[in-house]
C-alpha cells in the first residue's frame, strides 16, 4: 500500500492524482525493463529472461558507486551504466554467441541460467551479499504542493528521467548511423550482412545498450524497493508490460509499462488486498483477448 502514507487531506481528486503519479512512476521502471526485453528480442529473436537480474546487478554497481566510491548521484548513474554496458556486451560475446544458431529453447534456458547465476554470485560478493541496502538520491522525501495536490519529487524525477532516456533513445535510433543500423539489422539480418553492417558486433552493442537501460531502471527503482539480490523479480511484471505493448515494439513497451504501472497502483488502493499483484496479468489477458498481437504489434507489417 505504498502511497497511502503520503495521502493527507485534499479529497478524492488529490488521492487519485497521487495514485496515478505513483503508478506512472512505477510504470516507468516496468517500461524500461520491458524496453530491454524488446531491444534484445528485436535484434536477436531471443527473450532474455535475465533482464531483471541485469537490472539488479546494475543497481548494485550503482550502490557501490555511491557508497564505496562516494560518487555524486549523477556520476553514479554514468558509472553504473558504463560498467553494465560492458557487462552486457561481454555476456553476449561469452555466453550467448556460443549458443547462436541453436534452438530458441536452448538460448532461453541459457538466459534463465544466467539470471540464476547472477542472483547467486551477487550474494557471495563482500559488501553486497543478501542484505537490503538503501540508495540515497538527491530527491529524498521532498514534495511539491500545487494547491491541494501534493506530488512527490522522487516520482516526478523518475518520470522525467525516463522521458529523457526515451527521447535520447529515440534520437539515437532515428538519426545516428549506428542506431539506424541496429534497426536495419533487426528488420533484415541477411540484408544487413550484404550492406557490410557488422551484424555480430551490432548485436553485441544491443546487449550492452539493453543492460544499460536495465541499469537505469534499477537506479530509478532502488530508492523505492531498496537494493537487494532479488529485486530482479520485477522482470516478472515487466514481461507482461512488453506483451501488452506488442512484443517487439519499442514504443509499445513504454506504453505497456505505464499501463501496467497505473493499473497496479489503482488496483492496489481501490480493490481488495491481493489484487495489486495479479492486476498486471489480468491486463495481459484482457489485451491479448482483444488484440492478440498487443497494442503496437507489428508482426503483420514486418513480413513485407
Amino acid at each position: 500500500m505504498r502511497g497511502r502514507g503520503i495521502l493527507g487531506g485534499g479529497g478524492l481528486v488529490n488521492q487519485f492524482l497521487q495514485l496515478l503519479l505513483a503508478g506512472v512512476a512505477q510504470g516507468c521502471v516496468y517500461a524500461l525493463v520491458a524496453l530491454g526485453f524488446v531491444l534484445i528480442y528485436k535484434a536477436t529473436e531471443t527473450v532474455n529472461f535475465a533482464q531483471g537480474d541485469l537490472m539488479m546487478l546494475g543497481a548494485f554497481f550503482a550502490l557501490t558507486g555511491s557508497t564505496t566510491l562516494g560518487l555524486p548521484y549523477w556520476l553514479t548513474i554514468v558509472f553504473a551504466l558504463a560498467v553494465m554496458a560492458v557487462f552486457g556486451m561481454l555476456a553476449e560475446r561469452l555466453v550467448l554467441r556460443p549458443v547462436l544458431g541453436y534452438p530458441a529453447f536452448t538460448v532461453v534456458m541459457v538466459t534463465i541460467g544466467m539470471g540464476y547465476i547472477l542472483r547467486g554470485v551477487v550474494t557471495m560478493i563482500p559488501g553486497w551479499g543478501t542484505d537490503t541496502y538503501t540508495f540515497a538520491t538527491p530527491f529524498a522525501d521532498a514534495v511539491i504542493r500545487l494547491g491541494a495536490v501534493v506530488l512527490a519529487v522522487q516520482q516526478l524525477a523518475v518520470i522525467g528521467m525516463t522521458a529523457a532516456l526515451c527521447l535520447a533513445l529515440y534520437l539515437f535510433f532515428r538519426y545516428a548511423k549506428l542506431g539506424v543500423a541496429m534497426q536495419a539489422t533487426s528488420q533484415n539480418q541477411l540484408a544487413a550482412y550484404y550492406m557490410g553492417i557488422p551484424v555480430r558486433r551490432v548485436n553485441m552493442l544491443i546487449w550492452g545498450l539493453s543492460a544499460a537501460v536495465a541499469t537505469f531502471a534499477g537506479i530509478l527503482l532502488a530508492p523505492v524497493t531498496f537494493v537487494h539480490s532479488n529485486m530482479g523479480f520485477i522482470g516478472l511484471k515487466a514481461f507482461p508490460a512488453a506483451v501488452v505493448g506488442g512484443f517487439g515494439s519499442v514504443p509499445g513497451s513504454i506504453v505497456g509499462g505505464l499501463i501496467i504501472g497505473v493499473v497496479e497502483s489503482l488496483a492496489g488502493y481501490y480493490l481488495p488486498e491481493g489484487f495489486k499483484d495479479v492486476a498486471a496479468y489480468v491486463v495481459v489477458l484482457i489485451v491479448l483477448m482483444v488484440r492478440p498481437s498487443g497494442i503496437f504489434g507489428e508482426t503483420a507489417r514486418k513480413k513485407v
Partner: protein
Amino acid sequence: MTDVLELANVESSYGPVQALRGVTLSVHEGRIVTVLGANGAGKSTILKTISGIIDPGKGQVKLRGEEIQGRSPDWIVRAGIGHVPEGREVFPLLSVEDNLRMGAYTRNDADGVAKDLDAVYAYFPILRERAKQEAGQLSGGQQQMLAISRALLSRPAVMLMDEPSLGLSPKLTKEIFEIIVRINRERGTTILLVEQNAHMALKIAETGYVLEVGRIVMTDTCERLAQKEDIREFYLGIKAAGVRGQRRWKKKKQWR
C-alpha cells in the same frame, strides 16, 4: 584485360547438401558477366559465397588477385563487392533514404555519399519522390530499384546481381536492364549477373557461364552462346520442347 574477380574450384554446401561442385569462373574488369542456370543450379550460392555469407569448403575466391574467401561479409563489402540480393531484401520499416544510407554504411566520406545519393536518384527518380516513405510500402519494381541503388552506395568495384528481373513485368525488366547497362558504362562498375531471364541477360552481358547442378557446363561470349542450339532450346525456349513436354538437358547431351 585483367580479371577483377576469380573463382577457382569453389565448393560450397548447405549442411550436407553440396550446392557448388567446383566452380571456376573469372570476371573481367569493367564487363558484364552472366551466369545462367535453372532453379537450384547454384547461381545464388555462387554470389553468396563471393559475399562471404557462405564460406566455401574448398577453392579460392580472389578479388584483384587477393584471396577473400573466409573473410567476414563486412570486410568483403569494404573491399569493393556490392550485392543486390535475390528478392530485393530491403529494410521494410526504414525509409527509402535510410535504406540507401545503410548501403553506404561502410563509408565515412559524407560528401561522396551525398554525391552518390544524387547519382542513384538520377537513375531512379521515383526513389527521390518516395525518399521518406517506408521501403516496405514500395511496389516490387521500386523495391528492386532500391536494392540496386542501395548496393551502388557502397561504391562497389564489382556488383553482384541476383535475378533483378524476378517478379517484374517485361517492361519494367527492360527498364531495369537498361539502367544496369548504364551503371556499367557510366560508372565502370563490373557486374556479375545471375539470371533466369536468359534472353535479357545474354543481350546485355559480354561473357556467359552456364551452370548446372553446381557445375559450370559451358562458357562463351554471349553472342555465341545465344546461337547455340542447346541454349536456344533450353534457356531461350526458341525450339519447342519434346513430345513429353519436359525433356531434360542431361539426356540430351553428356557434358565433358
